[in-house]
């Protein structure tokens, strides 16, 4: 078993575009739940809306990259409004139910065979990233960590987007606007009694977190060059919640660190288990089973975390949203 290799594989996960996408989507959840108390269990739906919005407008309507990007974000805004208008005046759990259902509806719609020509059904869509790739400023070659110029390009772009969004969310949350959201998280009637339009604030938070989700959907699919419905199932939403809980939810760095830890741990456990099985030290499970086992381990880790450090790595216990 090559520990050096296992470790470097794991550390390699820190910078992948997928980690960046998870960080960004979890940042959206932090805006929703960590700062505003909105229970969104459909962040995978927002990611799918972003990814498909871009892929379909590029492939079917042949729009340029920037237009596709704007359409993708606009779709997320519309999706947020659709979910928010009927639920945000009601108790918090209504939003939770509606989001989880809506995310599944999105997934079923894009999987329908009838829409094969537009959505590609279960196969999904691909080759919509060409214009994005054409912006790559790095000449062909091998860069640090053995990355190709495209590897480097997608990483640089992904993390620039994440850093920008982190800074924006941080600026928003230290403002009086963010203060109103934090107030709503704790007691929306008290905030109403002080003359603030709670419904409008919740809607704004839902839209902003949704836009972050859609952007995350793009970071998730552009590097891959393909989008498939199977990637946007409910478990994605729950991985994002895991990331959020790991890092701490009322902080902007929490989701980023949480995403990194999540992927490093996932890679470590996978490769360690595989190594143990290959070397014959572990005989009672197969490699395939090991792949499942690591998610069980993630679940256990999450439980331990909730017991011993409920505020996450970065969180402040006194600001814990669900205490």
């Amino acid at each position, binding site marked *: 078993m090559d520990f050096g290799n296992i470790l470097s594989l794991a550390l390699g996960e820190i910078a992948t575009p997928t980690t960046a996408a998870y960080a960004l989507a979890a940042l959206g959840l932090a805006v929703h739940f960590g700062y505003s108390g909105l229970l969104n269990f459909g962040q995978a739906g927002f990611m799918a809306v972003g990814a498909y919005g871009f892929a379909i407008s590029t492939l079917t309507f042949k729009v340029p990259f920037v237009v596709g990007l704007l359409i993708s974000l606009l779709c997320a805004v519309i999706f947020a409004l659709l979910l928010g208008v009927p639920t945000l005046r009601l108790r918090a759990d209504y939003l939770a139910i509606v989001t989880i259902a809506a995310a599944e509806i999105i997934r079923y719609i894009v999987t329908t065979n009838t829409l094969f020509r537009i959505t590609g059904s279960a196969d999904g869509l691909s080759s919509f990233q060409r214009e994005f790739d054409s912006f790559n400023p790095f000449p062909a070659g091998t860069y640090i960590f053995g990355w190709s110029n495209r590897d480097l390009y997608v990483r640089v772009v992904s993390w620039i987007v994440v850093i920008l969004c982190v800074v924006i969310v941080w600026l928003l949350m230290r403002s*009086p606007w963010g*203060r109103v959201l934090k107030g709503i998280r*704790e007691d929306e*009637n008290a905030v*109403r009694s*002080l*003359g603030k339009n709670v419904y409008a604030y919740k809607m704004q938070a839902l839209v902003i977190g949704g836009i972050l989700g859609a952007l995350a959907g793009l970071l998730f699919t552009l590097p891959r060059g393909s989008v498939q419905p199977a990637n946007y199932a409910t478990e994605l939403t729950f991985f994002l919640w895991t990331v959020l809980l790991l890092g701490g939810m009322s902080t902007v760095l929490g989701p980023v660190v949480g995403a990194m830890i999540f992927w490093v741990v996932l890679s470590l456990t996978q490769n360690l288990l595989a190594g143990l099985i290959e070397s014959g030290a572990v005989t009672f499970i197969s490699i395939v089973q090991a792949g499942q086992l690591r998610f069980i381990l993630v679940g256990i880790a999450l439980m331990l975390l909730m017991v011993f450090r409920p505020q996450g790595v970065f969180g402040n216990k*006194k600001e814990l949203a669900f205490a």
Partner: protein
Amino acid sequence: MSTPNNVGNDNIDHMTDTRAIAVGENLPGCKKRDPIVVADNVTRSFGGITAVDVEHLEIPRHKITALIGPNGAGKTTLFNLLTGFDTPNSGAWTFEGNNIAGVSSYKVARMGMVRTFQLTKVMGKLTVMENMRLGASKQPGERLSKALFKNIWGAREREITQQAEVLLKKFKLDAKKDDYAASLSGGQRKLLEMARSLMVQPKLVMLDEPMAGVNPALTQSLLDHIKNLKAEGMTVLFVEHDMNMVRHIADWVVVMAEGRIVAEGPPGEVMKDPAVIDAYLGAHHDVDLGDAEGIRELEAELEADEESIVGTDAAGMIAPEAVEAHLEEEEGK
């Protein structure tokens, strides 16, 4: 919005203004010389219970009005209805002449009618100072379009911070300003909630049991603060059980029982009203024997009345003068 902190346009000092509050007799639902709130036929029922059934009510402007009545009389429900936190089965009411029935709660607050809650609502995970700032109105930084730019909202932020510091000092919370509100005691939370509602610079403050749980050592200064609100041109409507406090600071008392207004008038007068004593006799079965005056009055009342009201706090309700007069009468026989 005009500045609420003036002493009225007619240059009347509201602290010493002794003009009659009511027009005509002090009957339930009587007209006021200068009402700030006028409510008509407000009803609200929960299932079979009629929680509020108010035919007519006027709250006098620039006065401190106490809303009293036994538990379950409908005081909190009336607060909820007037401030838009609950929807009535019927009724209309105006604030400063504007019809505000059906107006959302946040708009009511913006118009200058701000309430606190019986079950205190402070943001435990925000600091005391942040709680206070949250109360301030007209903050450009609360708009999403301006939130990113501190240079736009920084000045107003400094302004409201100063305003908050003054209030916190008054309410003896200045030492706690950087603590999380969750670390405050129940009484301190009541104080914070009241101070925060003043950050809105309201014209009418509605306090639902502001003294409940407040350290007795603090109540005197809190009473002074409430009186000062009047001096600053505000109108106060508050719910309170402690009759001593009501007697101390209220200019006017409205008594509710079973959803209705059963009596109205100046404190001294209302507390002699048989309807009021009835209302309390019917509903209250706990007496505060820790209070010396309460005991004295209770004893006096016991002697005066064959049908003893021991075990009720109606004793605390009744003005001693009334009882004394009653006693003298008895002795005279």
